[in-house]
């Protein structure tokens, strides 16, 4: 029943979305305002239909209606309601429905936002923007109708479902995937505007200005999703790390890299009208990489080249990807005359060059990640041998590039546009460089010898130096010239050029995260030892005493844990209870790690094995120095983006209120 209804709703949505696209294009061609209005209504109707489909599937999930194969695959009767709800994105078919729903939501938001207001050029672009967004929706709906139907029936109806992978039954499951999808879908908006600009021939800076905020917000969601994923992995997956260069992670990292390059290079175009083609290429790449990443991780191709042919999903993704690439690059070629920029540069030593290099390095890292991710497939297809390309490879190749990027992060925001005079260079960079070199010298004196970590520290110091000086000088100048207090001056400074200072705060967050990444990976300490009850093991300044095993029943699993007492420098610090969870439907247990999290050092304990009679147990104990800085850096990035994108009016209102309170 629900299967038929759901399938019908999706089919209807497909019809409506195709109509909306066609009406928008034809209406714009014929200049028929009524067709355009009808298309806009269809966009909203499409959103309502997909929402209905979501409700149907959620209803089936919550009521454990196992006559749907998807429900049987992703939930059990015993699951908590919130994980039944999260089952919607627990597997392929539901994820695509959720993606399509967000896609429909964004299309509706774009229509609502720009149909009667917005910049003047918007009216010309909007029909084609709608058409592109509906085209993307149509792809997902086709995918669900013919390849990955979330409403596919199951017969005979099983008494209970298989349930989510227990690793996914955590609160993070409610947040991380949503953030990523919002990021992915968010990038489709600037992409759609770019395509509309190409179709209409309005290829000036208009589409960039309109979509700037959309892009930054999409970037924020994607960044947030990646950081959150790392945090989740660190706390729950039980191997003590946050990033494994897994293809699924790489799939989110690649569009992040090109998206970051895009956010930077649009600044050159806005200011100097250069790089028009390049920016179109970057946004197209970003969107294509989102699709490619999903193809890679969802088609099963990574397990083996041969798994690819098993289902229609992979083929459909690949077909859509080729379509996107064919049309977007075709349009760029078609408009190549209009796109000819008049590039002018006073000097090679300038912010433009710094941005070009930034783009080069970001795209270079993206290429490396791409190559490393698909290389095992190439090797299998060409040589017939299975090989692995993993963490050591990616670290080896991307660390030098990352260092270059770090250095550019210090130079880019402060070097002058056009031509950087010697005076400009000295004024902005002399002191931060001195501070950085002094810091480097101190570290060498303290015994830090590894070249990479030294370079990372010195560059981080340099970047922070430039940012701090910039804020200090700005605040002080403002306080002096306007006669304001330092705090007011600082606040007004932030509000007056939010984009610039928000961006600098984002950079600060990135540096804080990089320090966390560098220190935690180089100075990580790890020991593994088997202990009898009462025995202790020594790890760095910590000692961990094993006080015996315990076990207990939990709602969904049986938990076996070890009681540990951690001491630091001989003083009792914390009790820790790492354990293993046994689920009825799973063959092997899942680690349940425990840790003492601290702002500059985590003590992280994994129970790796134990004797059934409790006579001994093996523990892996990790000291992860400064790993919290990664998450703190993520928070600072969030703050910076909020400063950069919050609407002017709202901030002015806040400032007025604050002033009123002070007065």
């Amino acid at each position, binding site marked *: 029943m629900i299967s038929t209804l759901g399938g019908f709703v999706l089919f209807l949505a497909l019809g409506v979305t195709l109509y909306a696209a066609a009406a928008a294009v034809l209406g714009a061609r014929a200049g028929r305002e009524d067709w355009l209005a009808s298309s806009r209504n269809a966009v909203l109707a499409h959103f309502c239909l997909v929402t209905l489909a979501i409700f149907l599937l959620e209803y089936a999930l919550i009521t454990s209606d196992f006559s749907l194969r998807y429900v049987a695959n992703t939930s059990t009767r015993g699951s908590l309601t919130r994980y039944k709800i999260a089952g919607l994105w627990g597997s392929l078919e539901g994820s695509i429905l959720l993606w399509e729903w967000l896609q429909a939501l964004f299309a509706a938001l774009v229509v609502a936002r720009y149909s009667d207001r917005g910049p003047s050029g918007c009216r010309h672009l909007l029909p084609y923007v709608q058409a592109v967004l509906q085209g993307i929706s149509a792809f997902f709906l086709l995918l669900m109708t013919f390849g990955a139907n979330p409403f596919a029936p199951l017969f005979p109806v099983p008494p209970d479902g298989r349930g989510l992978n227990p690793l996914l039954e955590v609160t993070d499951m409610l947040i991380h995937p949503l953030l990523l999808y919002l990021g992915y879908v968010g990038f489709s908006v600037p992409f759609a505007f770019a395509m509309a600009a190409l179709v209409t021939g309005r290829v000036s800076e208009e589409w960039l200005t309109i979509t700037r905020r959309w892009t930054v917000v999409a970037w924020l969601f994607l960044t947030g999703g990646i950081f959150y994923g790392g945090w989740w992995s660190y706390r729950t997956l039980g191997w003590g790390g946050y990033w494994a260069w897994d293809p699924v992670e790489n799939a989110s990292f690649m569009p992040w890299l090109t998206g970051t390059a895009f956010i930077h290079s649009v600044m050159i175009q806005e200011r100097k009208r250069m790089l028009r083609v390049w920016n179109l290429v970057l946004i197209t790449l970003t969107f294509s990489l989102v699709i490619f990443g999903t193809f890679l991780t969802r088609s099963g191709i990574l397990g083996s080249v041969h798994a690819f042919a098993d289902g229609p999903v992979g083929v459909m993704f690949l077909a859509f990807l080729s379509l996107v690439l064919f049309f977007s690059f075709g349009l760029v070629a078609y408009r190549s005359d209009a796109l000819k920029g008049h590039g002018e540069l006073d000097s090679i030593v300038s912010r433009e*060059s710094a941005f070009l290099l930034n783009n080069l390095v970001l795209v270079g890292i993206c290429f490396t990640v791409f190559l490393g991710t698909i290389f095992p497939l190439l090797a299998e297809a060409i040589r017939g041998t299975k*090989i692995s390309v993993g963490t050591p490879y990616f670290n080896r190749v991307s660390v030098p590039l990352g260092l270059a990027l770090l250095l550019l992060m210090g130079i880019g925001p402060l070097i002058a546009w056009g031509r950087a005079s010697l005076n400009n260079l000295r004024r902005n960079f002399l002191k931060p460089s*001195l501070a950085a070199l002094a810091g480097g010298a101190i570290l060498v004196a303290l015994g830090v010898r590894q070249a990479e970590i030294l370079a990372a520290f010195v560059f981080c110091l340099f970047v922070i130096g430039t940012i701090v000086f910039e804020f200090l000088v700005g605040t002080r100048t403002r306080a002096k010239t306007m006669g304001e207090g330092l705090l007011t001056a600082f606040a007004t400074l932030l509000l007056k050029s939010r984009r610039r200072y928000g961006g600098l705060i984002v950079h600060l967050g990135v540096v804080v995260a990089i320090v966390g990444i560098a220190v935690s990976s180089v100075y990580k300490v790890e020991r593994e030892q088997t202990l009898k009850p009462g025995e202790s093991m020594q790890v760095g300044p910590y000692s961990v005493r094993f006080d015996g095993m315990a076990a207990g029943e939990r709602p969904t699993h049986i938990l076996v844990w070890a009681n540990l007492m951690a001491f630091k420098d001989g003083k009792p610090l914390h009790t820790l209870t790492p354990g293993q969870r046994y689920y009825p439907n799973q063959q092997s247990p899942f680690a349940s790690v425990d840790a003492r999290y601290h702002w500059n050092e985590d003590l992280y304990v994994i129970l790796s094995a134990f004797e059934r009679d409790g006579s001994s147990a093996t523990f892996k104990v990790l000291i992860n120095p400064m790993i919290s800085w990664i998450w703190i850096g993520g928070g600072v990035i969030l703050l910076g983006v909020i400063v950069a994108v919050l609407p002017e009016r709202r901030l002015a209102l806040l400032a007025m209120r604050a002033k009123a309170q002070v007065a």
Partner: protein
Amino acid sequence: MGSQQAAWAGSPAGAPGRRHGRGPGFALVWALVWIGLVIPGVAPAASGSPNPDLEDQVREIASGLRCVVCQNLSVADSPSDLAKEMRNLVRELVRQGKSREEIQAYFVSRYGEFVLLSPPKRGFNLLVWGLPFLAILLGAWGVYLVARRWTEQREEAEPAVDPAYAERVRRELQERERPSGS
């Protein structure tokens, strides 16, 4: 007031004189604060454990081997039983005085090239190691060409603003020179 504001808007970094006095001292304080924050993280690395050299060596080698039953984790990181056995095996081999290469070769003979997380740099695999650097070099060359073309366009563009105007200036200059020159 107006001019001050204009100067302010034009270049936030262009603040007048007084900050030149503070430079090096401030830089040093800043560096010290930073180092102070970093030290607590770097310090524990130096402290010891029963057999630090052996354990670090084991970890280093194990982090280059793939846990063959896991999705994408190294033998060093994986919590699985097999990985634990493989770690013990690595530890045993290190104790026997085997080198990193010998241990790798041993695991390759058992599980195939698949077990190495970093593909050995020979034959077909050279592509995956070389291409990124080749791409970056080519890209850097491209960036340089683009930047140079832009600066050249600028230099050409400046004198050729308006040929008619330039011609008039030239003629007027000639006319002026004629009486004084002759």
